[in-house]
């Protein structure tokens, strides 16, 4: 199980859980509510857990 935690524009956290062979890629810190078309800001440290 892999967790990827992001921060939404209003400060709430959101965690994506993926399973199986898919590995989490380095993901940007999402500061906007919608998926941005512009280049993403600097990514925050992500938490990854393999099971």
């Amino acid at each position, binding site marked *: 199980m892999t967790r990827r935690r992001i921060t939404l524009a209003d400060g709430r956290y959101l965690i994506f859980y993926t399973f199986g062979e898919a590995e989490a890629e380095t993901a940007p810190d999402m500061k906007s509510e*919608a998926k941005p078309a512009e280049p993403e800001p600097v990514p925050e440290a992500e938490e990854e857990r393999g099971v």
Partner: protein
Amino acid sequence: MSELRWNPLMGEWVATATHRQERTFMPPADFCPLCPTRPGGFPTEVPESEYDLVVFENRFPSLRPEPPEPAVEATELYPVRPGQGVCEVVLYSPRHTSTLAEEPVEQIYKLIQVWTDRFAELGQLPFVDYVFEFENKGEAIGVTLHHPHGQIYAYPFIPPRIERELEQSRSHHADTGRCLLCDIAGEERRDGRRIVAENNSFIAYVPFFARYPYEVHISSARHLQALTDMNEAEQRDLAAVLKMVLVAYDKLFNLSFPYMMVLHQRPTDGGDYDYYHFHIEFYPPLRTATKLKYLAGS
């Protein structure tokens, strides 16, 4: 505004959250806030679509990790405290029209792993005494969003029904030296008439003392207190039994069956609850395809 108000008559805390009156109510599918944001579409709670499950803080929470001060004054008879806790939403799938019953067993197994992860993380918060994982499903229950999801409330107190179960379990263990739910499961196996499903690790039955016509309890065969005590085989068996119960419900009246599903686990306040026993309870409100069971009266 939100706060916890003490009910001196019942000896319990009541959460007040007036801002929840403004929460999204039954939007059309095109405007579902729990669906992944589509390119060019309105921004939803979920900015991406590539995931198995998603957990996020509720936009309209009853409890917050850093709550505001109460909007009402306390008195000696009516203590008040900030509504501190955590409210999370668990999305079961990116697919708007799915239900947990329609998901494959493998997806339910993934949900169990997510529940376990949340129980472990939230239970470690110093202000959390109880992690309550649950699902309200169907308009008859009062659900306001159709997208398949459950919720998690991390409470700063032990909820009253759990307190009552703990007291009953503690008392039974003190009297007999045995676990109350282990004894209940044993009684159901001996009787056999109320068993809905069973596998190596779990039993699902209509309790002898059911309040709802189609109430079902699922308890672990092994004496354990929380999801975090389970091994992988038990997690998979729980997924299989859940699937059996959920499909059975939908087949009962040939409709997507409404219910409250609640996970009863040990508190996370650091106390000793070895006498307690993990189980799941279902409270379905239908007594026929078209009639509701109202728990009126005392």
